[in-house]
């Protein structure tokens, strides 16, 4: 008689949601989601609101594979290899750009991405990314559109822009620069776009006229990185050089080298329309909206240790 043992407590009403709930005050059994029912409902609503936002703007939802034969070469992003071949995607960027090269209009994608080893209050190895591309937009126009999405989801608020160079001392580089940047961002109040990243930190972005800084931006909300965007660089030669440089760095760090994604490079050689694109961390938006302390509170089943 499976299930009889817990029959006595079954049926306790959770009044806030109206869902039947089993009342177990101490050490919940492992089958339970770490997000409560209210958080599941908030997530469903957030996803619906995002889709409604893009429906109104006539941006097309697309689906590209979570499992693909190639992956990003970024030295500080570790992809998860799949037994039997291929990689879980860390972002749908390369696949979506291939759609743009094939003539797709403005497109967005909302789905799971994977990054090995990223665990913490704001990180889970699997998380939900919203990514969209706007042919004809530049970085400033896309920042505008992102602001209006964030206003829709979190309520309206003012946005500031600061330059990367105002946050990180010019003479810092490498890990010291990353640390300084992370600390500066954590201290940024309100909603703030960081712009004008040094060219070394903007793999896939166009350069500004100064030749030194790139058209990359990040959105920081209440000290948390929410989005990263570019006025995209579609120069296949530069992108190939980037793959090579990344692999040099990877060798130095004792990391697996990543084969250049030839399909992605060919799509760039064929030609990607001038566009801007941005990736947004959906779980973090939900945490900010719901005032959660830990990402586990908004995930049904986080990757536990």
């Amino acid at each position, binding site marked *: 008689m499976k299930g009889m043992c817990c029959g006595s407590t079954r049926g306790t009403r959770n009044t806030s949601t109206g869902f039947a709930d089993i009342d177990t005050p101490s050490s919940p059994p492992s089958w339970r989601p770490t997000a409560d029912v209210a958080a599941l409902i908030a997530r469903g609503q957030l996803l619906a609101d995002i889709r409604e936002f893009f429906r109104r703007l006539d941006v097309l939802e697309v689906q590209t594979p979570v499992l693909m034969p190639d992956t990003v070469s*970024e030295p*500080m*992003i570790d992809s998860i290899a799949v037994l039997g071949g291929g990689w879980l995607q860390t972002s749908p960027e390369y696949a979506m750009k291939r759609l743009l090269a094939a003539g797709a209009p403005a497109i967005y994608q909302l789905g799971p991405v994977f990054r090995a*080893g*990223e*665990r*913490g*209050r*704001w*990180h889970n190895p699997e998380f939900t990314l919203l990514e969209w591309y706007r042919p004809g937009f530049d970085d400033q126009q896309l920042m505008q559109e992102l602001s209006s999405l964030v206003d829709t989801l979190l309520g309206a608020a003012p946005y500031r822009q600061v330059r990367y160079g105002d946050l990180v001392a010019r003479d810092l580089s*490498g*890990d010291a620069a*990353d*640390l300084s*940047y*992370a600390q500066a*961002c*954590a201290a940024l109040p309100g909603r703030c776009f960081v712009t004008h990243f040094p060219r070394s*930190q903007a*793999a896939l972005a166009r350069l500004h006229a100064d030749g030194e800084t790139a058209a990359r931006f*990040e959105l920081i909300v209440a000290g948390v*990185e929410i989005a*990263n965007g570019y006025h995209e660089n579609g120069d296949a030669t530069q992108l190939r050089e980037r793959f090579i440089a990344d692999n040099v760095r990877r060798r130095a760090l004792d990391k697996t080298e990543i084969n250049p994604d030839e399909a992605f490079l060919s799509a760039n050689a064929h030609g990607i329309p001038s566009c801007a694109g941005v990736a947004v961390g959906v779980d973090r938006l939900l945490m900010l909206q719901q005032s959660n302390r830990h990402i586990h509170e908004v995930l049904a089943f986080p990757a536990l240790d």
Partner: protein
Amino acid sequence: MATYSTNEFKSGIKVMLEGDPCSILENEYVKPGKGQAFNRVKLRNLKTGRVWERTFKSGDSLDGADVMEAEMEYLYNDGEFYHFMKTDGSFEQFAASENLVADAKEWLREQDKFQVILWNDQPISIAAPNFVELEVVRCDPGLKGDTATGASKPATLSSGAVVRVPLFVNEGDVLRVDTRNKEYVNRVR
């Protein structure tokens, strides 16, 4: 001794940092989307009790510290050292200097039990229990019936500590006291 990598840093893990044994309190993973990952770690220096905050590159590691906590009974003071004995049946004894017992000194009563932190088998910290029950050896006479005015008076306990107590307390009473804030809790008998 084992080493611990940043992803194994959990509350309660004991590590060596700058020559001192420390206990990890908090570990926050920080990573810019495309940048190096870090761990912002809070640790308590077990020798000084101070809380340190340090940032490590993710994947860095620290040596574990040979730290153990043991319950010990206070035996006596020989004028220079304070002597304690393990309560695990080993009868193993340890001598602690005056500055080591500093915080616990006014609560020391022979045969009472204390939490002692040992590093490389040497005591480095001695903590009184959160609550102790001690007899009043000196205070002004009690005022009968006064249980509600909230007024207080000083009382000296058998360990030497002086705490504020309600007016009805008498010499010879046994009181339960919170050692963390030196507050009277209640009269035991």
